[in-house]
């Protein structure tokens, strides 16, 4: 485990972001239009739930799945650093992606996100 690459957190982050974004997108489309417009709020809530999940998944998998098993202190520290950067980067990336998509598809359900 000591030789795990410090690029791995970025891969994990990218995948987490992709997965969570896909789920957010699907969930947005699954929420039906309601007459009292509370569906917009529901879609927004789920958007942020999956945003948080991106961060939690990324850091969680990196830390509990890999960092804990690294016994060499300097490498563990480097991996945790990487994991932190990845978590922040892909959390922000998710939001930016969500913003762009919601503006592109102005007439679709995802428009509710922003």
């Amino acid at each position, binding site marked *: 485990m000591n030789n795990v690459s410090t690029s791995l957190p970025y891969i994990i982050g990218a995948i987490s972001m992709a997965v969570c974004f896909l789920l957010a997108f699907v969930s947005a489309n699954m929420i039906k239009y309601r007459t009292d417009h509370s569906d917009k709020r529901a879609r927004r809530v789920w958007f942020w739930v999956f945003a948080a999940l991106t961060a939690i998944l990324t850091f969680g998998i990196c830390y509990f799945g890999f960092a804990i098993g690294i*016994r*060499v202190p*300097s490498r563990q520290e480097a991996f945790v650093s990487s994991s932190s950067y990845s978590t922040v980067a892909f959390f922000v990336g998710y939001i930016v992606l969500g913003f762009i998509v919601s503006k592109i598809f102005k007439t679709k359900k995802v428009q509710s996100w922003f």
Partner: protein
Amino acid sequence: MATIIKKCVKTLTLASLMLAGFNSCCSDGEMSSKEKLLAYLAKDTLAVQVSSDKFAAYFDFSDGMQYAYSDDATKKVLEGIVQKITTHSDEFIKYSLANNEITELPDRMTDLYNTIMDPRSYQMQNAPIENALNQIVENGQCAVMITDFEEYTGIMEKAAFATPYFDKWLADGNEITFFVTDYTERGKDKHLYYIIFDTPKRSLLSMVKDGMEGKPQNYKTFLLSTCAYTLNTDYPSNSQGGNYRDSQGNDNVTSVIENGDEESFFKIDDMSAEYYPLGDNWNNIVFNARSLSEDGVPTEDQFKHLFSKLYLDLSQQDSYFIKDLDIKVYNIEKDFESYSNYAWALLQKGKENEADYYDETGALLQEYKYTPSQPIEILDMLEFDKNLFASTANEGNAHLSINLKPGFNGTIVGMEPTDMIRIDIYIKECEPNYDCLPDLFQWTGNDNLFESVKNTLQDMRPTGRVIYRYFVRAQQ
């Protein structure tokens, strides 16, 4: 999903390994680190300590010696030694010392023992002991000398005449072992000496000892040597060294490469040298060391020493008491690189790409010539653990260890991270052991041998002598 992650991890690690491989490969050719270091160590070793494979045996046939051989126990010991010499007679040149002459004894000497035992052999005077010593040292030949060490030059020679010869023999890196028996000659207390001049390999000494095996031990021994200390190690296996290890056996500080291949750790016993290719850079190593020496770490895993588990056996203290050791750290990269290129170029002579290394006249190209560089001493990086040495020295087996200096943060001004460094463990302070000398080397009215041995001990004090070396190289 999991397979994708695994594949990505695999490609990434493979890529980084390949990169590491290209970095560690030498710039010119393919000598492995092990080959380079062996060549480098060989260049400084004294090639020849003795100039002859044959041994010599000198027997004192001067008047008085017959009294030495009158004792039964001595007879048996002598018989054992002479037996060995006659069995290996083609390895020995035998001489008699008498009448101021060194006379070669006939090869076929089946009755050598009887001749020695016969009191009629001792009609002569004046064994030329000093000349014999001179011959031994001049010839550079391992020898056995059996004598009472009384030199008679008109008068009884009481000056310390043996000192220069003992000095020279020891200066060449060799040893002298004395077996001493007491006897009485016409009321005078004297000593019979079996003196073995030998190399540290002790081939002659073990032959003589074999001959004395099973015989009465009516003798005392004394080893006159500047290199009588033995070092031993307590490493987990042949391919592993004394670098830090936790209770599971993992090196999480220096990550020394220990897989047994040509680029990994190795130890050379007869050169007292070890090579540590570290798997990390000095900055990380210092970080790791600090992290693992914190209070929260379980005691059995705590980092204390960078290198340890090397022991100095202090029980053999015949000649010198080793009082204190210390280390000096050197950056030898320039000298090592230059010599490695030279050694590689030498190997290319007569091969297809010879033209890359030699010019038309067959002379070595300038860039491959070896230009020795002075090693640069590195201060403030590592230190010798004096407390551990002092506390374990009392028990006879001193524990030698090397620690990181507290102020060291991973970088040394003027040193590249991957420079080869050499850690020399040397004798800082030692004292001759005078206590047993009078009993062994003095006899009624004659101090010459006592003074000689004492002078030699003082002259040849091995202060500053390097007893062990670590060669260490870290990563980028």
